[in-house]
């Protein structure tokens, strides 16, 4: 039972934050102008002189599960874990396209659910054979998306905890974060650290 990654989207349909804990393949960096500035150090485009931005202390140790072929053959009986939005030809998408794909999926599912059942129904979660996607949407239009393995249920509550705790404290009440700007994400040190602490402290995190 484990948690793979977290995406946060704002009401302008842009990805404003990304963090991951377990991924088989490193996300490919976004192209220039693909994603906003302050989304995540690990997936921002490289600066023109080729210097990578200084890594935050909380990039996950991806080599726990990484391999060159993208498949993990674990020691136990678990089936191989695949990156959920991996391209069919097993070449990784750049991060901005991956983020747009995830957003497209949740937007279409959300609209479909609302059309089928009325405006009070909310799409919360879907499950495939290898992963489960949980969605928590706030009234202000922020969408918290978390991917976990297929057996984990009830992460919507965790997303709500992330909203009530780290998000309110270090994004809304942080004078240096421009919320609702269309040019910048919401990444910052304290936010990343507190989400990391919260997620690693969960019982479903292995």
């Amino acid at each position: 039972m484990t948690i793979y990654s977290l995406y946060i989207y704002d009401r302008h349909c842009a990805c404003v934050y990304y963090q991951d804990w377990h991924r088989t393949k490193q996300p490919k960096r976004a192209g220039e102008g693909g994603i906003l500035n302050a989304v995540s150090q690990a997936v921002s485009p490289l600066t023109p002189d080729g210097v990578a931005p200084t890594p935050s202390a909380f990039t996950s140790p991806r080599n726990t599960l990484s391999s060159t072929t993208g498949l993990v053959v674990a020691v136990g009986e678990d089936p191989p874990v695949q990156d959920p939005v991996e391209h069919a030809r097993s070449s990784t998408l750049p991060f901005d396209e991956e983020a747009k794909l995830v957003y497209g999926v949740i937007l279409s599912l959300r609209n479909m659910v609302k059309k089928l059942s009325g405006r009070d129904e909310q799409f919360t979660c879907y499950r495939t054979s290898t992963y489960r996607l949980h969605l928590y949407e706030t009234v202000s239009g922020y969408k918290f998306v978390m991917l976990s393995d297929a057996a984990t249920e009830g992460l919507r509550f965790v997303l709500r905890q992330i909203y009530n705790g780290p998000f309110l404290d270090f994004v809304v009440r942080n004078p240096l974060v421009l919320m609702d700007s269309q040019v910048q994400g919401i990444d910052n040190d304290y936010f990343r650290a507190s989400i990391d602490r919260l997620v690693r402290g969960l019982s479903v995190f292995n």
Partner: protein
Amino acid sequence: MQPAPASALSTLADPPTRMVDGAVMDYFLIEAVNALRVSSAVAAARAKKIECDMAEAGLLPPPPPAKQQNTRDSISSTTGKIMGSVDEEEGIRSRLEAIGMHVGGNFVERLCCDRSLFSDSLDAIKFVCKELWVSCWDKQVDNLRTNHRGVYVLQDNAFKPIARISSWEGRQEALKRAKLYVALPAGIIRGALSRIGFHGTVVPEITTLPQCTFQIKLPKNT
């Protein structure tokens, strides 16, 4: 025996403490800094325009040219740019401190209404460290040092207004931007002391977030 007038009188004599919601205060201060940034830019632009007009009319000597292309003057042009942004910061900072002085003075009037007079400046500083800090920021000052000649250094290891400041560009950038957000608290302290009768200066300094020190210089004759 009529209980109604008695309770009304007691509320008048001993009014309940009025409180401000902490979160609301945070949001307000964030927006206040942004609004003051815009207004101080407008004021600076207006002053500059008046200067240019007066220079054109011959009433003032012309201002020194702002941009020069020689390599020798490349230093001066960069300092010109840096000075521009420093002036702008200074404009916001002085406005924030002025607001803080008003707030601090009026606030301390209410806090001191039941107290006796202050015996000396150390007494006033101790009042600031304990009561003012508790009323404004929910804790007391962590460390007070003095050289007994009018200079006091107050240190707070987790100063509330800057406790949440964090930037995606790293610690150094966050520290630089945080300097603006301690101008209002410095003004509150200065205004409070000034209303009690001790007119001095308060200089805030941030070494590492969220630790902040305030250096207070009071005149020596008290």
